[in-house]
C-alpha cells in the first residue's frame, strides 16, 4: 500500500512555564517518525506526557515542528489551507470541541464556506449526506450541541472532519470520554467509514484494548519518543519493549496485578520531558534497565517484523 502520510524526525519544544526557575524550553517530541499507509488505521498509544497531542497538532499543521518534515503523498506540506482540507482532526472531548453557540448545520457548513467554493445548494446536500453517513437525522441539524448526548456529539465531530472528504483523519482520544457502550458504536462507525470510504485514520489512544479492535498497525509513544512500532498482531502478541509489555499488563484483568510494582516513581513521564538526563527515557521506570540504558539512548532497530528502540528488545522476545 502506498504511504500516504509520513513524518520524519519531528521534534518540538515549548517554552517552559516555570520561568522563575530559569525556565528553559521543554522538548516534547524527540525525533518522532511515522508512516501512515492509505486505507489503514494506525494507532498511536501513549499516556499523559507522551507527546501524543502535540504530535497530532503537528500533523494537522496547527503548529510547525521545530525540525523534521511531514510529507503528504510524498510531497512536503504546502499551503496551510491545502493541509486543512486533506488532514482533518477530531478532538477528545466532544462537548468542548463543538462551538456551543452554533447549530449543527452551521458547524458543518463552516469548513465548506471557508475552504471550498460550493454553492449553497451543494453545501446543503453535502451536509445532509454527511449526517446520514455518521448516523444522524437531518432534522437534528438545526439543534445546538448541548442538546445531544456525548456519543452523538462525537458523531457530529466526525461528520465535521469527514465533510471535506480528507485523505487522513487524526483523532485524539476520540472515544476516551465516552461510555463503553457508546464507545463501541463509535468504533464501529470508524471501521465502517474506513471500509466504505477508504479513509486512512491516525487513531491516538491510551487504551490498548481499543487498539486491538480497530487498528492495523500501532506505534507506542513514551516521553516524546517512539518506543516500538509495527503491526498490531506482532506488537501486541509479542511486545519487544518493556513499556509495551507494561501497557498490556495494565489492561484490567490481564494478569495478576498484585505482581505489578505498586510503588509510584517520583518521576512521571511529564517530568521526564523537562529533566536533563542521559540514556533511555524509560529507564526510570524500567525493571530491566542497566548501565547501558543509563549511558546511551537506544537506537531504533528492526527486529522480528517491527521497529523497536530498546537494548533489551531481544531478551523480551
Amino acid at each position, binding site marked *: 500500500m502506498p504511504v500516504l502520510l509520513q513524518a520524519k524526525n519531528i521534534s518540538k519544544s515549548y517554552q517552559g512555564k516555570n520561568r522563575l526557575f530559569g525556565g528553559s524550553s521543554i522538548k516534547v517530541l524527540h525525533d518522532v517518525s511515522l508512516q501512515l499507509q492509505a486505507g489503514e488505521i494506525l494507532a498511536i498509544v501513549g499516556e499523559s506526557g507522551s507527546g501524543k497531542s502535540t504530535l497530532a497538532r503537528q500533523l494537522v499543521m496547527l503548529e510547525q515542528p521545530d525540525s523534521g518534515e511531514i510529507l503528504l503523498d510524498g510531497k512536503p506540506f504546502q499551503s496551510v489551507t491545502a493541509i486543512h482540507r486533506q488532514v482533518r482532526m477530531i478532538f477528545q472531548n466532544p462537548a468542548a470541541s463543538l462551538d456551543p453557540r452554533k447549530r449543527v448545520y452551521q458547524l458543518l457548513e463552516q469548513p465548506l464556506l471557508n475552504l471550498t467554493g460550493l454553492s449553497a445548494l451543494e453545501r446543503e446536500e453535502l451536509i445532509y449526506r454527511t449526517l446520514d453517513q455518521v448516523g444522524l437525522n437531518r432534522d437534528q441539524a438545526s439543534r445546538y450541541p448541548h442538546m445531544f448526548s456525548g456519543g452523538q456529539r462525537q458523531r457530529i465531530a466526525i461528520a465535521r472532519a469527514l465533510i471535506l472528504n480528507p485523505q487522513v483523519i487524526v483523532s485524539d482520544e476520540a472515544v476516551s470520554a465516552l461510555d463503553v457502550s457508546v464507545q463501541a458504536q463509535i468504533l464501529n462507525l470508524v471501521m465502517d467509514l474506513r471500509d466504505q470510504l477508504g479513509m486512512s485514520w491516525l487513531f491516538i489512544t491510551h487504551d490498548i484494548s481499543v487498539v486491538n*479492535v480497530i487498528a492495523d498497525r500501532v506505534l507506542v509513544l513514551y516521553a516524546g519518543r517512539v518506543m516500538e512500532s509495527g503491526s498490531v498482531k506482532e506488537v501486541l502478541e509479542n511486545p519487544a519493549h518493556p513499556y509495551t509489555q507494561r501497557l498490556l499488563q495494565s489492561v484490567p484483568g490481564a494478569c495478576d496485578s498484585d505482581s505489578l510494582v505498586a510503588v509510584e516513581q517520583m518521576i512521571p513521564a511529564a517530568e521526564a520531558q523537562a529533566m536533563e538526563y542521559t540514556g533511555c527515557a524509560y529507564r526510570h521506570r524500567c525493571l530491566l534497565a542497566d548501565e547501558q540504558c543509563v549511558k546511551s539512548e537506544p537506537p531504533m532497530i528492526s527486529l522480528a517484523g517491527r521497529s523497536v528502540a530498546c537494548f533489551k528488545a531481544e531478551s523480551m522476545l
Partner: protein
Amino acid sequence: MADQDCLLAVEGLSVDFETRSGSHTAIESVCLDVHAGETVAIVGESGSGKSVTSLAIMGLIRKPGVIRSGKVNFNGMDLLALSSYQRRQYLGRDITMIFQEPTVSLNPSYTVGYQISEVLKLHLKMKRTECRKRALKLLHEVGISDPLTCFKSYPHQLSGGMNQRVMIAMAISCKPSLLIADEPTTALDVTVQAQILALLRQLQKNNGMGMIFITHDLSLVPDIAHRVLVMYAGQIVESCSIDDLFTGPLHPYTEALLKSLPAHHHKKGERLSTITGTPPRAGETITGCHFHARCSYGSERCKESAPELIAALPDESRLVRCFYPLAANSKTSAGRR
C-alpha cells in the same frame, strides 16, 4: 456474611431533582449493603444515577436535588436522619470518599502535607508533630517512594496518580470502616490505574474496610470487587457476585454491556456488539421497564408494567429487575481470564 459484619445497609433510597419543568427522579428505590472486607461495585453509564447514589449516602445532596425517601443505616444509625452536624462526626473519619479528578479535588493553595494533617487534626485531634509523623507514614503506606518531598509539594506539582494516592492517604488516615471510591481511576493513565487498583485491594486487605467502588467500566470490576450492582436509568437492574456476573448475567442490559466491551471482541474486522438506541434522558417519563426500548428480548408486558427487583435465587443473593431474566447458566464469552 454474618449480619453483624454489615457496615452499611441502604434501603429504598430515592432522590429527585427539581427543575423548571417539574421534578424528575434521579434514583429510585436503591438498596445495597456492604460488609467488612467486601467491595461492592456500582456499575452504570452516564445518567444511570451511580454518582447520585454515593452522594446521597454521604448526605451531600443539595438543591435542586432532594432525597425523597430511604434509609442509610450505618453502624445502627440512619445517616439521613442525623443533622448535618452529627453526620460530620462520621464523614471523613468512619466513612470517607475519594473522587474522580484527584488534582482538582485537592486544595491547590495548600501543600499536600498540610491537607493530610488537617484531616488528622480535625478528626483525631493530633498535635502538629504527631500529625506530620503520621502523614509521612500514610504517604509511605500508599506507595509514595519519597514521602518527605511529597509532603512539601503542592497538588499541581504532582502527577495525577500521585494526587490520587494522596487522596487515598487522606481517606484512610482515620482508619475508616467504609471507603466510597467514585470513579477513582477514570482520569488516570492506564498503567497508573492498575497500580491504584492494586493499592486499594492491598489496603482493604490490611484494614478490613468495606468499599463501594463506582465505575462505568465493567472491565475493572473483576479486579477489585466481590459483588456488583448494575444500574440503569436510576434503578438497580441486577445485583450479584462477580463470578455470577461473568458466568451468566441475568439482565439483558448487563449482557449487552459485557458484550460491548472491546476486550470481549476477538476477530479483526468484526464489528463490536452495541446496544441500539440511547439511554433515557433525565426527566423522561417511562412507562414499564426502563430498558425495554433497547432490549433484544421482552414482550408487550415490558412496555406496560415495570418489573420489580426480585430475588432470582431462594437465598436472595442474586437480584434482577426483569420479567424475563436470562437463563442463569447461559455463558457469555466475556468470561474471566
